[in-house]
């Protein structure tokens, strides 16, 4: 304890490069290094680290192509006098940089380390510096910086006299992007810190991603023409207005500064750079305001609000259905969980949307040669996909609540049956929506095909549930109902569940296609019904053994599902 025991600490200086700050940077770097070193001690940690390195290498590899394009684009723009092209490049760099940066926390959660640092006597300046340093090594910044270098090389090769000025402009532009991305990130993190806003953002992002998919058929159906019936004159008019407007924003200012310098217009070039500097300061100011609030101990947790006084809200007795008992309790609980989980709702909404998209191609695209009689069975396969995560890991979302199932007098068989009944209802709704869409777009299928499809479902549903119940007990993994991200331990379960679903589809195809080829589609129905009887028998056998299996895997199941992250 020497040094500490000497008594009072010297009056502290908290500058950005003070002795204390330097010690703190060193300690932090050492801690980071030790965390990496410790993670390498386990095989899984080593794999994770290797995967991270690989993802960085792949990211750089993927970014290299656009880098070459950007560099060549800058060269062409300057040598062939296309000022809008170089502005477009600056805009592309800026938008992609910000987009990648903003997406990171939406998928991976907030970075808690920065907030943990606030426990220590770290100066605000040092904290901001570290926050920016974390930003510099983020994939979005590395890619953005690489692209800025590419632009600089392209400009330098085209006009060697611009090398110095372009470097200055691009450095300010890159710094602006870094500050803006960190400011956006800080605000996104602020929203992500609270469950409600986090869920709203996640759902908004997921449905935005789904909506983007809808653009594909819009463009697909209007090949050679402008989408959505737009007129060329309208596009040109809006384009010219945007051209004028973009010049006051940082990418426009940066490209303008370079281009004016190329034309020897020193004063306007410097003015554009000055305006860019002002934007950079504004981004820095926005970031500082947010970080200042955080550094002063802003509470973003889900801490309980002050208990409201007055009469309790009405409607607490609202319950689903009119039946009671453990089976209904499980059913009702899972329904509430579903309604409160954005990713699960997204997973359920995706199959009908995808079927709609594919049906567009099926009607008039490259797949139009595929017989339309197959549309219904093929589409119903999609209905299963939305339920995969639920059916094949039906205890994974319970968290600590899974203990309750072991404590309650309700047999696990009843609990699993309640869950399966709920999934059956969900599947029925999905299948009904998809079938209605298919019938609307293609007309009613042949009776023999429809009956064979129903027979296949009677085979596939119990088989899926039986396999799902088995995997849920033997290969469970903890799953989050609020985030869309890879879960530790999910890979084996996911691969197996996909294999099983493909096999069930394969069995159906193997029976249906030969029958159709020989013109005896009706024969598929009794064959599939025989398989349905076998799969129902297997389902009931597994259900009957659920309690014994759960008993045998009680510890590993509880451990996996309750695992802290």
């Amino acid at each position, binding site marked *: *304890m020497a040094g500490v025991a000497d008594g009072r600490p010297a009056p502290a200086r908290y500058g950005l490069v003070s002795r204390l700050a330097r010690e703190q940077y060193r300690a932090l770097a050492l801690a980071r290094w030790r965390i990496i070193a410790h993670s390498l001690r386990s095989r899984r940690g080593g794999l994770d680290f290797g995967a991270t390195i690989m993802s960085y290498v792949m990211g750089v590899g993927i970014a290299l192509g656009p880098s070459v394009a950007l560099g060549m684009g800058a060269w062409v723009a300057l040598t062939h006098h296309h000022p809008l092209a170089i502005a477009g490049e600056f805009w592309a760099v800026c938008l992609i940089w910000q987009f990648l940066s903003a997406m990171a926390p939406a998928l991976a959660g907030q970075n808690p380390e920065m907030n943990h640092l606030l426990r220590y006597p770290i100066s605000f300046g040092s904290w901001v510096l570290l926050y920016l340093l974390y930003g510099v090594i983020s994939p979005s910044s590395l890619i953005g910086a690489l692209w800025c270098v590419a632009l600089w090389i392209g400009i330098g090769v085209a006009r060697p006299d611009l090398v110095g000025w372009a470097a200055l402009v691009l450095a300010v532009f890159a710094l602006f992007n870094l500050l803006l991305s960190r400011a956006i990130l800080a605000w996104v993190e602020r929203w992500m810190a609270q469950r409600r806003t986090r869920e709203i953002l996640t759902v908004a992002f997921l449905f935005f991603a789904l909506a983007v998919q809808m653009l594909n058929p819009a463009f697909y159906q209007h090949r050679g023409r402008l989408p959505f019936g737009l007129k060329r004159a309208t596009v040109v008019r809006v384009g010219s207005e945007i051209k004028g407007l973009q010049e006051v924003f940082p990418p426009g200012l940066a490209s303008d500064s370079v281009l004016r310098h190329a034309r020897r217009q020193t004063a306007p070039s410097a003015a554009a750079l000055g305006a860019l500097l002002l934007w950079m300061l504004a981004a820095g100011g926005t970031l500082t305001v947010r970080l200042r609030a955080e550094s002063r101990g802003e509470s973003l947790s889900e801490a309980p609000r002050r208990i409201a006084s007055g009469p309790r809200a009405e409607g*607490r*007795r609202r*319950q689903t259905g009119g039946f009671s008992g453990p089976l209904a309790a499980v059913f009702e609980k899972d329904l509430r969980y579903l309604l409160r989980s954005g990713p699960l709702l997204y997973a359920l909404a995706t199959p009908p949307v995808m079927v709609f998209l594919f049906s567009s191609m099926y009607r008039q695209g490259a797949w139009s040669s595929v017989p339309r009689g197959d549309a219904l069975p093929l589409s119903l396969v999609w209905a299963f996909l939305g339920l995969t995560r639920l059916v094949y890991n039906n205890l994974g979302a319970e968290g*600590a609540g899974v203990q309750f199932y072991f404590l309650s007098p309700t047999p696990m068989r009843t609990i699993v049956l309640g869950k399966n009944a709920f999934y059956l209802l969900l599947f029925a709704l999905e299948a009904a929506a998809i079938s209605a869409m298919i019938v609307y777009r293609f007309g009613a299928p042949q009776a023999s095909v429809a009956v064979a499809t129903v027979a296949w479902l009677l085979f596939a549903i119990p088989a899926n549930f039986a396999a799902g119940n088995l995997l849920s007990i033997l290969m469970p993994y903890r799953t989050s109902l609020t985030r869309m991200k890879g879960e530790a331990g999910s890979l084996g379960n996911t691969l197996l569940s996909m294999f099983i679903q493909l096999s069930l589809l394969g069995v159906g195809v193997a029976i249906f296609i030969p029958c159709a080829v020989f013109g005896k589609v009706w024969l598929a129905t009794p064959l599939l019904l025989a398989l349905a009887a076998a799969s129902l028998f297997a389902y009931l056998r597994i259900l009957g053994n659920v309690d014994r299996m759960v008993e045998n895997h009680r510890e590993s199941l509880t451990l996996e599902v309750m695992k802290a992250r």
Partner: protein
Amino acid sequence: MDTPAIATRGLTRRFGEFTAVDQVTLTVARGQFFGFLGPNGAGKSTTIKMLTGLLAPTSGQIEVLGLDFAAHPIDVKRQIGVVPEGLALFGRLTASEYLRFVGRMYGLDRATVNQRTDELLEFMNLANEPKKLVTDFSHGMQKKLALAAAVIHGPKVLFLDEPFEGVDALAAGSLKSMLQRMTARGATIFLTSHVLEIVERLCSHVAIIHQGRLVANGSLEELRAGVALAGDISHEKLTLEQIFLRVVGGTEANGEEALQELSWLA
């Protein structure tokens, strides 16, 4: 003689080479407020997990209210209530939804579930947050909810793992009164806690587990007498903390010596 509320014989749990609980034999009479103590890692939670069916024993026997747990797990579970270490809550439900769910899982009819849910929420001061999800509750509120869930079906034996940790003083007072009334009406409470003052105030009987083995078991008076006899001191002065420290091998003097080492502390 009445059948004991809880009886274990040779209860053992091994994790690979490590023996977490070793040949624990104890009896808890009906109506007792029983404190189960031990240092960190002594085997308390492992024991309570085995007593409540969360963990299978490697060997040994557990009887609750005269029923063999291994042979009649469902019947035993109907009679017991548990606040386990992980609280066993469903975070994505509201408090009332969770209690109704638990009540129905114990087979209570809807009217009873509704009535008890309302009463418990009022009692636990949780009634004013009807729309808040359990996951957004503070730790103390979650604890109170877990306690409410553990008693909604009127259990005859209640297992509580650190029930007062994180609960405010007001709520803790109400809970203690509630638990004492339960024992007065014949319920048995099996409690673990690191707060020895609470155990001393509430419990009539105490067992101490250390390194997986039961090292003391009896009423507070019996423990005092035993420790006093071994140390040749007057037993009337001994607090539960002193008994505990002597039984598990620590002494207050050791603690003072350790503090001397940290002389730089203010």
